C-alpha cells in the first residue's frame, strides 16, 4: 500500500531579503496519493510549491526524485522530472485555442519541422476525454471558457507532459459547487492512474473527502504530517493556527435596537430590482445569493458608487439621496469591498495612511495632516484589531490577506459608521484571521453598529446573521429569521426563479 515516495524534499529552507519564508521543512509525495498541504496564508505553502516546481531554488535542503538527488535550475527541469503545477491564477493564453494551449512549446512535429496540427487536436481530444471532459471543443478559444473549463485545460496540459506529480494550488477557490464536485472526480481518477497529487486548499470538507495524507505548515515551519484517518477538523485547525479555536462562528448576542436603515423599492439597472428591507442597530443582516445575483450591486447602490435610479433610502428616519461614496461616508455608511486589492486598499501605502484614508479630514487641522494623531490612531487600530505587522509604516501590500482585511475594516471604523456593509469579509482569509474578523463583527454590533454582511459562504451567513436576505436575479426572494434559517431554506431561495422577470 505505501509505495516509496516519487519526490521527497528534505530540510528545505528559503529566505527572502532576510525574512525566513521556510525553515527546515520536509515533504514527500507518493505515486497515487493525494497529499494535502495546509496552512494559513504566509505559512510557506506557496514557497514550498514553487521550489518543487523549480521556480525558486532552495537556500538549503535536498530534492530527490525516485531516490536520486536533483537540482531544479528552472521550471523546465521540474517539468522534465514529471512535476507539473496548476496555479490558482491560471496561466493560459486567452487568444489561443484549447489545443494550441495544451501543447504550447511542445507541439508534435511532422518531418521538416512543421507542426502536426491534426495530431495536436487529436491528442488534446484524447487527453480531455480522459478527464471526462467530452463537452469541451478543442478549437474553442480559451477566453470563451469558464474558470472550471480553463482549469481542465491546465490539467490536460500537465498530463500532456506525462506528469507524475500534479501540484494544485487552491484549485476550488473560484469554482461553484457543481464544478467542485467534477474537479474532485478528476482528482480521484488521476490518483487511480498513479499520479501523485499535492492539493493545497483552505476548504476542510474537500480535504477530508480527497486526501490520503495531510501536511500542516505554520509560520514557515513544519508542524506535522498525518494520515487523514488519524485527525479531525478541529485538530487540523488548531495545528494550523497554533492554538485551539473555540468555535467557528462566535455569534455575539447584541441588543437589537431601532431601525437605522430603511430601503424601499430600490432600483439600479438589472441587478437591483425593487429591493425593500430594513436594518436595525446592533443587528447583523446577512445577504445570501449566487454570484451575479445582485448582492454586490445592492451594496454599491447603497454606497453611492452606482446611485439608485429610483426608490428611497432613509437613515434614522431621514430620507437621503446618496450619489457618491463620499456622501455615503458623510452619512455614516461604510463599505468594505469585495475586491480588497483593487478597491479596498492602496497596497503601496503604509498601514498608517490606509487607516486614515477614509477620514483624512478628521486627522487634519485645516489642510495639514496631524501626523502624530494619525500615527496614534493607526497604532490603536492595529492593536485593537490585532493586525500582525512590523510597524504602522509597513506597506499594506506586504501583509497577509486577513491582516489586509483588518486594515480595510480599521479604515472604515475611523469614520464611526452607523451602517457597515461587509462584502465577502473573509474571502481569501485564513482560518485564524477569519475567527478574529467574526469576533470584531461581534464587538461592533455590541457598540450599536448595524452590519449588512454579504457572503458566498453559506455557513458564514447562517452562523453570523440575525436575519438573512436572499437575493436572486436582482430581486428579494427570501427574508429568513435566524431561528428558521436552514441551509435548505436559504439554498432554495437562492435559486428561486422570478417569474415576473420579463415584466
Amino acid at each position: 500500500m505505501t509505495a516509496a515516495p516519487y519526490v521527497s524534499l528534505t530540510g528545505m529552507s528559503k529566505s527572502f531579503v532576510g525574512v525566513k519564508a521556510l525553515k527546515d521543512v520536509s515533504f514527500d509525495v507518493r505515486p497515487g496519493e493525494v497529499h494535502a498541504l495546509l496552512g494559513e496564508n504566509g505559512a510557506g505553502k506557496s514557497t514550498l510549491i514553487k521550489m518543487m516546481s523549480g521556480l525558486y531554488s532552495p537556500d538549503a535542503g535536498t530534492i530527490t526524485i525516485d531516490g536520486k538527488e536533483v537540482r531544479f535550475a528552472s521550471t523546465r527541469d521540474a517539468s522534465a522530472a514529471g512535476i507539473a503545477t496548476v496555479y490558482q491564477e491560471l496561466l493560459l493564453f486567452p487568444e489561443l485555442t484549447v489545443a494550441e494551449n495544451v501543447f504550447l512549446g511542445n507541439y508534435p512535429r511532422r518531418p521538416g519541422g512543421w507542426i502536426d496540427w491534426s495530431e495536436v487536436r487529436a491528442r488534446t481530444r484524447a487527453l480531455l476525454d480522459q478527464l471526462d471532459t467530452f463537452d469541451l471543443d478543442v478549437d474553442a478559444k480559451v477566453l470563451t471558457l469558464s474558470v472550471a473549463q480553463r482549469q481542465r485545460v491546465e490539467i490536460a496540459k500537465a498530463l500532456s507532459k506525462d506528469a507524475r506529480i500534479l501540484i494544485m494550488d487552491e484549485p476550488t477557490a473560484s469554482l461553484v459547487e457543481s464544478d467542485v464536485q467534477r474537479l474532485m472526480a478528476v482528482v480521484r481518477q488521476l490518483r487511480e492512474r498513479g499520479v501523485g497529487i499535492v492539493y493545497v486548499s483552505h476548504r476542510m470538507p474537500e480535504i477530508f473527502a480527497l486526501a490520503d495524507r495531510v501536511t500542516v505548515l505554520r509560520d514557515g515551519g513544519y508542524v506535522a504530517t498525518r494520515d487523514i484517518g488519524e485527525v479531525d477538523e478541529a485538530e487540523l485547525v488548531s495545528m494550523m493556527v497554533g492554538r485551539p479555536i473555540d468555535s467557528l462562528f462566535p455569534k455575539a448576542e447584541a441588543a437589537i435596537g431601532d431601525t437605522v436603515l430603511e430601503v424601499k423599492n430600490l432600483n439600479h439597472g438589472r441587478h437591483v430590482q425593487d429591493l425593500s428591507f430594513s436594518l436595525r442597530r446592533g443587528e447583523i443582516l446577512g445577504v445570501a445569493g449566487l454570484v451575479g445575483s445582485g448582492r454586490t450591486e445592492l451594496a454599491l447602490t447603497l454606497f453611492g458608487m452606482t446611485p439608485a435610479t429610483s426608490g428611497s433610502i432613509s437613515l434614522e428616519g431621514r430620507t437621503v439621496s446618496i450619489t457618491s461614496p463620499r456622501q455615503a461616508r458623510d452619512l455614516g455608511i461604510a463599505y468594505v469591498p469585495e475586491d480588497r486589492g483593487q478597491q479596498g486598499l492602496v497596497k503601496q501605502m503604509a498601514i498608517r495612511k490606509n487607516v486614515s484614508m477614509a477620514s483624512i479630514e478628521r486627522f487634519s487641522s485645516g489642510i495639514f495632516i496631524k501626523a502624530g494623531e494619525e500615527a496614534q490612531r493607526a497604532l490603536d487600530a492595529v492593536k485593537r484589531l490585532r493586525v500582525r505587522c512590523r510597524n504602522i509604516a509597513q506597506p499594506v501590500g506586504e501583509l497577509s490577506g486577513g491582516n489586509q482585511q483588518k486594515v480595510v475594516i480599521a479604515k472604515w471604523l475611523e469614520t464611526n459608521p452607523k451602517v457597515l456593509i461587509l462584502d465577502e469579509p473573509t474571502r481569501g482569509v485564513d482560518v485564524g484571521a477569519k475567527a478574529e474578523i467574526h469576533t470584531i463583527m461581534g464587538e461592533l454590533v455590541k457598540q450599536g453598529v448595524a452590519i449588512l454582511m454579504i457572503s458566498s459562504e453559506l455557513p458564514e451567513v447562517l452562523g453570523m446573521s440575525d436575519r438573512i436576505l436572499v437575493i436572486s436575479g436582482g430581486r428579494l426572494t427570501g427574508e429568513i429569521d435566524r431561528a428558521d434559517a436552514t441551509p435548505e431554506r436559504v439554498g432554495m431561495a437562492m435559486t428561486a426563479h422570478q417569474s415576473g422577470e420579463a415584466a
Partner: protein
Amino acid sequence: MNWKSLLRHETFLALLLVVVLIVLSFQSDRFFTVSNLLNQGRLMTEIGLIAIAMTFVIATGGIDLSVGSILGLTAILTGVFWQNVGLPLPVAAVAAIAVGTFAGFVNGLIITRFTVPPLIATLATLALYRGLAEGISQARSVRGYPDWFYVLGQGEVLGVPTQLWILAAAAIIASIILAYTRWGRTVYAIGSNEVASRFSGLSVEKTKLALYTASGFAAALAGVIFVSRVSTTRSDMGTGIELDAITAVVLGGTSIFGGRGTIAGTMIGLCLIQALKNGLSLAGVKGDGTIMLIGAVLILAILASNLFERSGTR
C-alpha cells in the same frame, strides 16, 4: 531615520548634481561663477514652474502635454490684450493668465467629465491651444513693452533674479502641500490606486480638475515671465517645453505610473539638466551632444533608482 532612508532617488540625484557641477567647473572658468549660476536660474524658471505643477499631475498617474501651448497662448494674449485691446499691461497680463488657467480647467474637465485619458486629452489641446495662439497672433510679434515690465524677467531683487524668487516660493509651497497636507495625500493615493481612492470617499475628480487647472495656471504664469525675459511676444513660444518639464519631473524620481515623487526631486532634476546644458555649451560641446547626454543621464538615473528604491512616498 536610518541609513536606508538616505538611499533614495533624491539623494542619488543630488550627489550626481554635485559631481556634475564639479566636473563642469573644471571644464570652463566661466561656469562656476555667481553671475553665471544666477543667470542659469533665470533661464530655468519657466520650465521649473511648469515642472512643479507637472509633478502633481504625474504623481496622480496623469500627464499634461498642453503646457507649452498654454504658455504660448498666454504670451500672445498678454501682448494682444495690451497692444490691440488697449488694456493696461498689468490687467492684460492677469487676464491672459486667467485664460491660461481656464485652458487648464478645460483639460481637467475633458479628463474627468468625459473620462478621456490625459495623454490623449492634452495631446489634442496641445494642438488646439497652439492653433488658437497662432490664429490670434497672425504671425505678428508684439514688442516695445514698458521698462518696468522687464523687472519680472530681467531684473533682480536683492541681487537675485526676480523670477527665481517666484520659483523658490512656488517650490516651497508645493513641497509643503505635497508632503504635509491631505491634498498631497490624496494625490499620492489617486496615483497609487484610483479605484481604492474613490472607494475610500476621496474626491478623485475634484482633485484632478484642480491639478490640471493649476498646471494651466503655472504654464500661464511662466508665459508672462517668458515675455518679460525675452522682451517680445511670439506665438511659437514654449514649443516643446512640456518635454523639458516632464524630463525634469521623471529625472527627479516621480513615477510616470503615479503614486511616487517629490518636489525636491523635481527641482534637483531641473538643476541637473540646466547645469548640463549650460556647462557643456561653455565647454564647447555642440547642442546635439548635450541633448544626447541628457537622454543618457535620464536613463541611468532611472536605472539606478530602480536598484535601491521601492517606495518613495515618504
